[in-house]
C-alpha cells in the first residue's frame, strides 16, 4: 500500500451510547445520541460534515441516510459499509482514505446495530456455507479453537474463565458497558453451557448499540476539541484460503493484518500502551495476544495471569470491558473500540484510565467461512 500522497488524519470527536438491550428504539434513535455527542466533542455544527460513513451488518436499507435525516446532515455523500463484526471499522477506514486523499475535511463515521431485533440466540449465518449447513454456529467455532488450544498448550477451562473475569472487572468501571458487575472464575464456569468448553459468561452478550467519531486532517485538528488523536495507521484484510490441516489456534488473518500494519507504520507491539481487541469469546482474547505479537505462541495464559493485560499492567487489553463486558452490537463494535482508545489517549477514562497512554490499537475481525480463519479483519493504530 502506497501512502505517499496521503495527509495525516486525526480524530476530533467521539460518542457512544451505553450498549445493552434497547428494543423500543429504532436504528436511527440508537445512533443519534452517539452522533450528536461526537459532533459536540468536535465542536462542529452538523452542516460542517462533508460525508458520512456508516457501518452496520443488519440494519436494512441505507442506515446512514436514516440517521443523517434526523441530525441535520442531509445532502452529503453517505456510504454504508458491511463487513460483519468489522463493519464500522471498515467504515472508519474508508473515511480515513477519503480524508487522507483530500476529498473531504470533516467526516463522520458511525456504527450501529440492533441485535435484539433478530430475536436472540446465535447470529444467523450464510446457509450456503457447507459448515453452517451442517450445524456450525459462531460459539462452536471458537469452542473448537479453545478445545484445541487447551489440548496443545495444557491450559485449563479456569484459564479461559479468567479472561471473562478480567473483562467484567474492567467493564464494571465503564458506564457505557452492558455488564457492569464483576464475576468470578467459579461463576463463569458454572454459567449455562453454550458450546463446550465455552459457557454463557465466556460469550459476548446480545445487545444493541452505536458509536461515532469525527475525523479531519491533522493540520486543522488542533482547532477542534482539546486533544486530537492522530490515526497512525489503518489496515484491512480478508481471510486467506488455507486448505489442509491448518492450526486453528493461529488466527491467520489477525496475524497477517497486524504484521502488515506494524511494517507499514513502524509501530510494533512493544510500543502499544493500550488496546481493544475482538474478545467475542474468552479464547479469542488469548489467541489475539499471540497473533498481535503481545507474547509468543502458547504464552497467552501466562501473560494474562501476569496481570500485564489488566488495568495497571504493562499493556492493558480491553479496558472498556471488551466485547465480553461492554457488549458486541456487531456493526457498532469497531467504532466503539476507536471511541475507547481515543478517549484513553486523551486521558479521559476516569477509573479505567491507562496512565500515560500514548499509543493504542483497535482490532476487530469476524465472519466465519469454511476454509478461512475469518472473513475480515481491521486494525487501527492511534497516537498522541
Amino acid at each position, binding site marked *: 500500500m502506497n501512502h505517499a500522497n496521503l495527509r495525516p488524519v486525526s480524530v476530533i470527536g467521539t460518542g457512544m451510547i451505553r450498549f445493552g438491550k434497547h428494543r423500543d428504539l429504532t436504528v436511527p434513535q440508537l445512533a443519534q445520541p452517539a452522533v450528536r455527542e461526537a459532533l459536540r466533542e468536535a465542536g462542529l455544527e452538523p452542516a460542517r460534515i462533508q460525508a458520512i460513513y456508516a457501518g452496520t451488518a443488519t440494519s436494512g436499507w441505507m442506515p446512514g441516510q436514516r440517521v443523517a435525516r434526523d441530525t441535520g446532515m442531509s445532502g452529503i455523500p453517505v456510504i454504508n459499509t458491511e463487513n460483519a463484526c468489522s463493519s464500522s471499522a471498515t467504515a472508519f477506514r474508508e473515511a480515513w482514505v477519503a480524508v487522507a486523499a483530500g476529498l473531504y475535511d470533516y467526516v463522520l463515521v458511525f456504527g450501529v446495530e440492533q441485535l435484539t431485533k433478530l430475536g436472540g*440466540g*446465535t447470529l*444467523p449465518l450464510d*446457509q450456503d456455507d*457447507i*459448515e*453452517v*449447513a*451442517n*450445524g*456450525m*454456529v459462531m*460459539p*462452536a467455532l471458537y*469452542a*473448537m*479453537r479453545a*478445545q*484445541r488450544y487447551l*489440548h496443545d498448550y495444557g491450559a485449563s477451562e479456569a484459564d479461559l474463565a479468567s479472561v471473562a473475569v478480567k473483562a467484567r472487572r474492567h467493564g464494571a468501571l465503564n458506564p457505557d458497558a452492558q455488564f457492569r458487575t464483576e464475576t468470578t472464575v467459579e461463576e463463569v464456569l458454572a454459567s*449455562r*453451557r*453454550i*458450546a*463446550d*468448553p*465455552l459457557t454463557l459468561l465466556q460469550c459476548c452478550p446480545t445487545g444493541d448499540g452505536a458509536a461515532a467519531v469525527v475525523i479531519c486532517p491533522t493540520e486543522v485538528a488542533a482547532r477542534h476539541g482539546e486533544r486530537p488523536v492522530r490515526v497512525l495507521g489503518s489496515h484491512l484484510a480478508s481471510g486467506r*484460503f488455507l*486448505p*489442509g*490441516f*491448518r492450526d*486453528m489456534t493461529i488466527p491467520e488473518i489477525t496475524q497477517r493484518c497486524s504484521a502488515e500494519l506494524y511494517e507499514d507504520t513502524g509501530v510494533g507491539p512493544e510500543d502499544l500502551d493500550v488496546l481493544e481487541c475482538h474478545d467475542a469469546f474468552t479464547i479469542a482474547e488469548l489467541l489475539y495476544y499471540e497473533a498481535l505479537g503481545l507474547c509468543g505462541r502458547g504464552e497467552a495464559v501466562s501473560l494474562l495471569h501476569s496481570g500485564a493485560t489488566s488495568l495497571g499492567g504493562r499493556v492493558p487489553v480491553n479496558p472498556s470491558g471488551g466485547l465480553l463486558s461492554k457488549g458486541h452490537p456487531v456493526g457498532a463494535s469497531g467504532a466503539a473500540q476507536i471511541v475507547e482508545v481515543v478517549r484513553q489517549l486523551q486521558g479521559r477514562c476516569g477509573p479505567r484510565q491507562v496512565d500515560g497512554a500514548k499509543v493504542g490499537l483497535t482490532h476487530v475481525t469476524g465472519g466465519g467461512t*469454511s*476454509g478461512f480463519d475469518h472473513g475480515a479483519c481491521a486494525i487501527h493504530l492511534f497516537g498522541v
Partner: protein
Amino acid sequence: MPDSNAAAVRMAPRTGRQLREGDVAWVGSEPRLRAARCLDCDTRVFPAATVCPSCNGERMAELPLSDTGTLYAFSTVHIAPAMWQTPYTIGYVDLPEGVRVFGKIEPVAGLAPDARVRVCLEQADDDAQAPGWRYWFAAA
C-alpha cells in the same frame, strides 16, 4: 461391526445440506466422500470444486477420501438456531488425503482431540426431488 454401524445409522444426525450424488465417489462398491485435487497446485478441497480456490485453475481431479481419520477438535453445541435439535456435536476430522472435513459426530462418548474416527455415509431421501447422501463421524 454391522451392529454398531446399524445403531449409528439410526442415530444419523439430520444435516441441513445433503451431499449430492456428485459429492460421493465409489471405491469399488464402497461410497466415499469425494474431494477434488488441483492438478496445477495440488490444493485439495471438500466438497469438490470445479475451480481451484488457491490458484483459480480449472483442472480439478476427483479425490476419493478415506473412511477413517483423526479428530482435530469438536464441540457439543447447546444453543443453536431453531432448525437444530440441541445438544449436538460437531467437529473437524483430518483425513489421510490432506483434507479436513467438518461434520456432525455421533455417538460422541469417549472422544478427545486426536482420536481416530470413522466417516459414516448413508443415502438420504429427505428431498424426494434430489435424493442425496448424508455423512457424519463416529468413533473408529
